[in-house]
């Protein structure tokens, strides 16, 4: 195949990837978009296979590798529960990062195969810079994603781990990486040790960057690592002179960056403050100063009675719903209410859950129609004419202190104004504070009734009481 034709085909595949993302602007076009993505990938792989020289061993390696990897991927995709989606995405990010490291190393050791060697078999400075960036970003993505996975999957506590002088450590590692990149470039690619030192230092940096970030900030971390995996791919796209890889890297990089921005805005935090980490470490002190007063506790029967006679109920799900796997019971409860003539809607806060869009996927899994599910800015004005706000597993995202108490750590964060509803039911395991470690004054309001218990069991009891 001529190099020009190959380049054009890579361009086509890049454009198909753009269309894959474009399709996600609405659920109707999204399935079509996903198909475009698959076609784009097939074109990119086929083009590469036509352009390279295949001998028996390489055919075995390629068929075997795609067979093993593809089989594992297909099984995972079929079996993974929807509640585990955040950790699955983190795991996938780590694989992209690792693949980037391996490809960069291969390019360094066999530059002829990547057409980046000059007549003497030496690498150009620019190529060395690109693959150093590829391996450094890839390695940070890998180890950072492994930590994010462990935190999301519960293998590791979600609490921030604060090393002494951690900023200094990170800066030192960063400077070391820059020096080693310069050294590798100066050596014309002979200093292989420098390459591995860059990679190892970047693995360490990935760990030290992510461990101080707490569980509630994971939506930002997952988005940020998504972005990194894109930039790593783009760096190698320069090395490989491959348009498909360049375009994809740019798309994924900006996608992750935008999601990080949306998540930060949803928490009214700056990106820098999230990255520096440590949020929630002094939460215990803040919680003791919160307002106290009488808490009204209710039963499932009370909630069933009030909601049955309501005109409009808005359901506010949060991470607790995901943990308890309560989405199916919740949907059943909503169906029974609809049979009673109650209008039901769902309100989703941008940072509810552990990754962007987490709640939407869980509700979709429970077959909640997506046109009953609303984003914060579309539904916030509706709470004032709702009879009931049913908060299940959410806490900080409903905290009125974010609007009313300038001293609160979450002051300024956009919140769902559930307190404007006539009655608020708050399903919660205990009266403790949320992940941000902030007391919620909503618990003590006159129109709030606490339903203490597991989210799923509570929803099931309400279903029983409605029958």
């Amino acid at each position, binding site marked *: 195949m001529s190099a020009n034709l190959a380049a054009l085909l890579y361009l086509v595949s890049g454009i198909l990837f753009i269309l894959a993302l474009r399709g996600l602007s609405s659920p109707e076009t999204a399935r079509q978009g996903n198909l475009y993505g698959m076609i784009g990938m097939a074109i990119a792989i086929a083009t590469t296979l036509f352009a390279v*020289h295949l001998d028996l061993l390489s055919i075995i390696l390629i068929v075997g590798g795609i067979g*093993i990897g593809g089989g594992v*991927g297909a099984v995972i995709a079929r079996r993974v529960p929807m509640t585990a*989606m955040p950790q699955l995405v983190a795991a996938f990010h780590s694989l992209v990062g690792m693949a980037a490291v391996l490809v960069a190393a291969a*390019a360094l050791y066999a530059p002829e195969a990547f057409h980046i060697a000059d007549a003497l078999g030496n690498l150009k400075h620019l190529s060395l810079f690109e693959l150093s960036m590829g391996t450094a970003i890839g390695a940070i993505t890998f180890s950072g994603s492994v930590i994010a996975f462990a935190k999301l999957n519960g293998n590791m506590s979600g609490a921030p781990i604060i090393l002494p002088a951690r900023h200094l450590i990170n800066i030192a590692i960063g400077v070391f990486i820059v020096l080693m990149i310069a050294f590798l470039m100066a050596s014309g690619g002979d200093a292989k040790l420098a390459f591995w030192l860059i990679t190892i230092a970047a693995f360490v940096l990935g760990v030290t960057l992510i461990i101080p970030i707490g569980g509630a900030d994971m939506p930002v971390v997952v988005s940020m690592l998504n972005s990194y995996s894109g930039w790593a*791919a783009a760096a190698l796209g*320069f090395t490989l002179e491959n348009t498909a890889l360049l375009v994809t*890297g740019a798309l994924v990089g*900006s996608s992750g960056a935008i999601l990080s921005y949306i998540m930060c805005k949803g928490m009214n935090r700056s990106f820098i403050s999230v990255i520096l980490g440590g949020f929630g470490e002094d939460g215990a002190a803040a919680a003791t100063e919160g307002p106290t007063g009488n808490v009204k506790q209710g039963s499932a029967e009370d909630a069933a009675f009030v909601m049955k006679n309501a005109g409009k109920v808005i359901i506010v799900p949060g991470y607790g719903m995901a943990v308890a796997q309560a989405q199916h019971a919740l949907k059943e409860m909503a169906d029974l209410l609809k049979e009673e003539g109650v209008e039901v809607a769902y309100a989703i806060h941008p940072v509810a859950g552990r*990754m962007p869009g987490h709640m939407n996927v869980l509700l979709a899994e429970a077959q909640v129609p997506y046109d009953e599910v609303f984003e914060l800015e579309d539904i916030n004005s509706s709470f004032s004419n709702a009879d009931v706000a049913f908060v299940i597993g959410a806490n900080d995202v409903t905290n009125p202190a974010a609007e009313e108490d300038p001293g609160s750590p979450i002051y300024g964060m956009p919140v769902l104004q559930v307190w404007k509803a006539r009655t608020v039911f708050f399903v919660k395991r205990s009266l403790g504070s949320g992940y941000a470690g902030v007391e919620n004054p909503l618990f003590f309001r006159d129109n709030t009734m606490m339903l203490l218990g597991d989210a799923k069991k509570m929803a099931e009891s309400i279903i029983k009481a409605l029958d």
Partner: protein
Amino acid sequence: MEAVDPVIFRLAIFVLAVFVGYYVVWSVTPALHTPLMAVTNAISSVIIVGALLAATATAGSELAGNTAASGGAGFSRGLGFVAIILASVNIFGGFLVTRRMLAMYKKKER
């Protein structure tokens, strides 16, 4: 004026693609942000093209007098093989899990 380095053209493609990505991703509905992450995962595994090149590296081939390359080619093939496995997990896993998620988004039956 001398000829423009091809690197500049690649940089141009990259920068323009960042802008395309910016506008396309802002138009993604928030309800589909999780599928967006899954599908971006899948497409970033197009890095498999690099893995394929690595797995097909041949010893010294067209370059005369480059004897050191043979060991490098074998190592490169090994790295390429592992990278193909990792990228394939992501490609199949990413696209299929996205398809599974998207199949769940349904409109109200009326």
